[in-house]
């Protein structure tokens, strides 16, 4: 076990970097962070659109969210992998493919969180803002969303944990994130699969459990404030 860690720890943490592309744990964290940060504005926009009184805006957005939420992430990854090159005309690398799949997928889930946050507010909030002469956009921006997002923080932490776990699917399109690296190490060592995969599981556990604990602390602070 210690020999395994001695030999492979750098590979496990950063992949072939600096002699090759970044990989391993660092790539997993980078991908999950970028994925969530980019999915946030899109999810916010979709969530607000789903709350809209205009049927031409609300219906297609609702349908889109249903379609994404009823489809496995892996399916979204394959669509991105095979059809981004067709649409853009040039080959997309694995990192961008996975990133786009994650953003599209997570945005649909974030939209539901935003929508639920908006719906949980008392109806009088919107009415009061409108009767004060605000436009609907102003009411959303200045009155509704600030209150809704306050309660979203714990859900966002959960979403970040999910996103970290979702990045593991990058393995399937050959992206050298953490799980892919573990598979490579397993293929090289051959005789220690249990040790390799327990270490892999442990690494995800430390990240995700740490974030879960932070999420709970945030929830407690919100409850107190």
């Amino acid at each position, binding site marked *: 076990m210690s020999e395994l860690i001695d030999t492979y720890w750098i590979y496990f943490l950063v992949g072939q970097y600096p002699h090759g592309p970044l990989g391993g744990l660092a790539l997993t964290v980078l991908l999950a962070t970028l994925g969530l940060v980019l999915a946030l504005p899109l999810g916010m926009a979709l969530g607000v659109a789903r709350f809209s009184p205009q049927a031409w805006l609300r219906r297609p957005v609702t349908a889109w969210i*249903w*379609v994404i*939420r*009823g*489809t*496995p*992430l*892996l*399916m979204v990854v*394959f*669509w991105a992998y*095979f*059809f981004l090159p*067709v649409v853009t005309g040039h080959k997309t690398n694995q990192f961008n493919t996975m990133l786009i799949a994650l953003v599209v997928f997570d945005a649909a889930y974030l939209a539901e969180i935003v929508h639920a946050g908006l719906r949980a507010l008392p109806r009088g909030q919107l009415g009061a803002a409108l009767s004060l002469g605000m436009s609907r956009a102003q009411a959303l921006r200045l009155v509704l969303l600030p209150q809704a997002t306050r309660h979203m923080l714990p859900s966002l932490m959960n979403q970040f*944990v999910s996103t*970290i*776990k*979702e990045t*593991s*699917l990058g*393995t*399937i399109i050959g992206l050298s994130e953490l*799980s892919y690296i*573990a*598979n490579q190490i*397993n293929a090289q060592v051959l005789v220690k*699969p*249990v040790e*390799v*995969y*327990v270490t*892999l*599981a442990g690494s*995800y*556990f430390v*990240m*995700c*459990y740490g974030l*879960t604990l932070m999420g709970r602390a945030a929830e407690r602070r919100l409850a107190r404030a």
Partner: protein
Amino acid sequence: MPDLSFAPLLQGDYLAWLLAGLRLSLLLTGLTLLTALPLSIAIALLRLSPLRPLRVVGEAYVEAVRCVPLLVHMLFWYFGVPELLPDGIKETVYAGQIEVVSAWAALTLYTAAYMSEDIRSGVRAVPGVQLSAAMALGFSYLAAMRLVVLPQALRITLPPLLSQTLNLWKNTSIATVIGTAELMYQAQRVESATFRGFETFALVTAAYLSVSLLLTALAHWAQARLSPSGARR
């Protein structure tokens, strides 16, 4: 965009592959439900136990399983666990359909961790006096749970359990990583045999979506039908 034609996919071998994949995906979902439900009830009871060590075991299980991606669970069960078995059993395992069994094991443990949380909140939603009243009538703790609390809790829990079933259905696709010949695996196989990626993925996406929408509709129906407020009036 190349010309689209679904015709080659809807005949002979390719259609048979896709249907076999759909069957295995549905079978995996069904088998996992059968094993994950009892396991999740047991874990929920551990977490609600009056004895602290049992609660700790239950909580450790849920946190440990949920904080690791399903893909890693599958890799572990496929590559790791068979190596831990004694030689005689190992050969039997490798001779059988190890990729299906590994996927089943990983899906069961993963799904049970999520379902147990739903069942636990269902049990907590049942007023505490129900348990005390049953025990005052002479039921043991376990009998009171089984005959009085759990039947009420599972009723409340049905909608979230259905949405966990939806997640389970989508999660079966990850089994393709260890070579389980479910729907996603067959989609890749048909794609590489026909080069009709768009059509293949469109068909398979539609298959996933139809089952998902069915489960979502069921969950909505259960929510409307079985919610405590609906039952009271």
